[in-house]
């Protein structure tokens, strides 16, 4: 945890020594951190695509990629070369400017969300005092990019995919925010580092277990992953909103989706699983690694669910969101509020 701080301050000192002004130094340091975040997302992508292929094969009793490299690990680098070499096809009837920027705006929202996500104590770009709220606000704008991609393709399958995404993401955003509210009420702060600090003795998954389950279900829907991947349901809609995308633009969609997956897993680890706090006093593993283990545990849960359950129907999805998840999450807020007051009355 100290390493990154040392690097950051060292970089700033060095730049100041070079004769840059404070503002320029800050700008350069921010740019370096942004690059580091993009690099982190891309490094995760390499592992995640491999893991997804291996896990899906495991759950379906297949072998998965096994030709290139150890356990097929080099399959993805070869795929990157393939994607880069593909022709960038834009349909003649497409809304061209919107079609071009749609995948990029989703990528930007995926990166912007990382501005407030800490990867360890002090390993954060901006420790905003509205941290988790900023994350929710940025996450809500991702819907626009998906609808842009779906609409601009000028294709009925893409449009249906985009419409489904909007309905699904707007519905499931509500239980997601409500489930996080329980934790925020217990901490009394929206700052992510405060939330981690409050979990030194007990992770919030114990008092907020229901909220954790609601958050997990809602984020599966938010990231458009199975069993809630109706937006791209390939049996019905070819590939949903990115049917017409090919080559590098398709790759950018994928990077952004996996970036979002890592982001929501990190938020789940920070909000419910104690962040970088070590459980059972196992402090010999550094905090950053603990957080990474928890993130990958969450990602494993996401993949497990995706490759185990069949896709559910769109009206069932809506009923489940509005008639079950939202009432339960509201009840959770009420119980948490009453519980906090009783706790305060007992302890004085």
């Amino acid at each position: 945890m100290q390493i990154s701080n040392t690097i950051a301050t060292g970089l700033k000192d060095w730049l100041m020594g070079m004769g840059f002004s404070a503002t320029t130094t800050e700008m350069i340091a921010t740019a370096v951190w942004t690059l580091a975040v993009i690099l982190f997302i891309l490094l995760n992508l390499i592992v995640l695509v491999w893991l997804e292929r291996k896990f899906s094969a495991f759950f379906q009793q297949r072998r998965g990629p096994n030709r290139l490299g150890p356990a097929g690990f080099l399959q993805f680098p070869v795929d990157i070369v393939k994607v880069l070499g593909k022709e960038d096809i834009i349909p003649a009837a497409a809304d061209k400017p919107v079609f071009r920027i749609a995948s990029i705006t989703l990528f930007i929202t995926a990166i912007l969300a990382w501005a407030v996500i800490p990867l360890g104590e002090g390993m954060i770009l901006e420790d905003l005092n509205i941290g988790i709220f900023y994350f929710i606000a940025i996450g809500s704008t991702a819907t626009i990019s998906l609808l842009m991609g779906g609409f601009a393709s000028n294709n009925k399958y893409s449009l249906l995919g985009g419409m489904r995404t909007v309905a699904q993401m707007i519905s499931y955003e509500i239980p997601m925010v409500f489930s996080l509210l329980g934790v925020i009420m217990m901490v009394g702060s929206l700052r992510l580092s405060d939330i981690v600090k409050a979990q030194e003795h007990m992770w919030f998954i114990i008092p907020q277990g229901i909220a954790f389950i609601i958050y997990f279900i809602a984020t599966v829907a938010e990231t458009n992953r199975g069993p809630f991947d109706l937006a791209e349901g390939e049996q019905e809609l070819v590939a949903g909103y990115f049917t017409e995308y090919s080559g590098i633009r398709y790759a950018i969609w994928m990077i952004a989706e996996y970036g979002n997956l890592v982001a929501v897993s990190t938020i789940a680890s920070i909000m419910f699983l104690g962040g970088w706090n070590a459980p059972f006093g196992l402090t010999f593993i550094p905090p950053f690694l603990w957080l990474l283990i928890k993130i990958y545990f969450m990602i494993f849960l996401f993949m497990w669910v995706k490759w185990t359950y069949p896709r559910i129907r769109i009206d069932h999805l809506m009923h489940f969101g509005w008639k079950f998840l939202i009432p339960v999450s509201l009840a959770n807020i009420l119980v948490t509020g009453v519980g906090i007051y009783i706790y305060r009355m007992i302890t004085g």
Partner: protein
Amino acid sequence: MNIMFWIIAVITLGSALLMVLNKNIFHSALFMVVTFLGVAAIYMMLQADFLAAVQILVYGGAITIFIIFGIMLTVRGNMKQTNLFSKNAALAGLVSLALIVINAIMVLMTDWPVSENAPPVETVGHIAELMLTKFIVPFEVVAVLLLVALLGAIIIAKEVKKTS
């Protein structure tokens, strides 16, 4: 800081203008997103970080609904003619001019007090406290109003059937 303000102002007002002048309703809605994000950036420059996040969440997120209504309510083969223009350009110009002049006069005539206090570091707590103590009645009335609007929308969409 000053340069940043001008950049943000040009982007915000420019995209607002493009939103009005665009003939494609889908593009208009997208330019509206840029406008709302620009306003959020200005809130952020005024150190109202919570308000900026609310602006992004409420306005930026709700745009998709506007886009969907735009697509669904304008059944035309060609999207390039979905955002139609009125022919009363002269009248519209007159009304806009009057609006600008009135606004400008009011802005110039108001005495803007400048507070000596440093901006608060933590804004959320104060807003929450005010909303649940001093302004509890308006807060609850707004909540009830939103609920009524929601119920009204459902009733209009579903058409209540008479049960004897």
